[in-house]
């Protein structure tokens, strides 16, 4: 009973998702949600506002500087997490050998 219910739910969700995918604008359509005013503003005023020739660097480091700060903090957190899991045992052994 439970299996039939979950399978039915799965099929319904699958149909809904496939329907939604076919409703999305495809390719270089001007109505696509990605082509809004912000993209046009970056392309037209990016060079004069940031003075960087590479528009990707201008967006990455200037307009979206806060996101990039978050990315570097993610890298830092990854090293801290791996170090806290793996380095502690090694460090304890070194301390024990030293004493």
């Amino acid at each position, binding site marked *: 009973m439970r299996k039939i219910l979950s399978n039915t739910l799965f099929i319904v969700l699958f149909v809904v998702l496939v329907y939604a995918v076919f409703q999305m604008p495809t390719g270089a359509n001007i109505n696509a949600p990605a082509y809004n005013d912000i993209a046009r503003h970056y392309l037209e005023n990016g060079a004069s506002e940031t003075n960087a020739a590479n528009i990707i660097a201008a967006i990455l480091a200037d307009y979206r500087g806060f996101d990039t700060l978050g990315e570097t903090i993610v890298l*830092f957190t990854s090293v801290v997490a791996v170090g806290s899991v*793996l380095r502690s045992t090694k460090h304890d052994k070194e301390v024990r050998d030293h004493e």
Partner: protein
Amino acid sequence: MNDIIVKNITRIIIPFAQVYGIFIILNGHVSPGGGFAGGAIIGTTLILYTLVFGREKGKKKFSHKASEIAESGGIIWFVTIGLVGLVVADRFLTNINAGFPEGIIGEILSGGMIPLLMIGIGVKVASTMISLFNLLIDEGV
């Protein structure tokens, strides 16, 4: 790895690869590239050195202390540049309005704070790659 061909080729290749990585970081605001790509190249050369010459020699080139300094220094450098904007122009991470020199577009000295941030990101990415690698091989077998 005790192979004379691999050792000599590595010894020749590493300086060129590192100079190329530094070039990509410093030209991030003029041409394709930037801190993440250049930092990945420099981190890869350090990993290659450790793989070929062993952990003990690699520890002399890039010790745990150096990785600690580079890890924290990258973020502190980034936040310090952001705080300059907060102090001068009342906004965190402001570029031209905070008084960073504009320069001429298309030249290496342009883009205000973007090249400075790219240097910080490059140091951070390179040290993250080599630190994760060192932590994992120190623990293994």
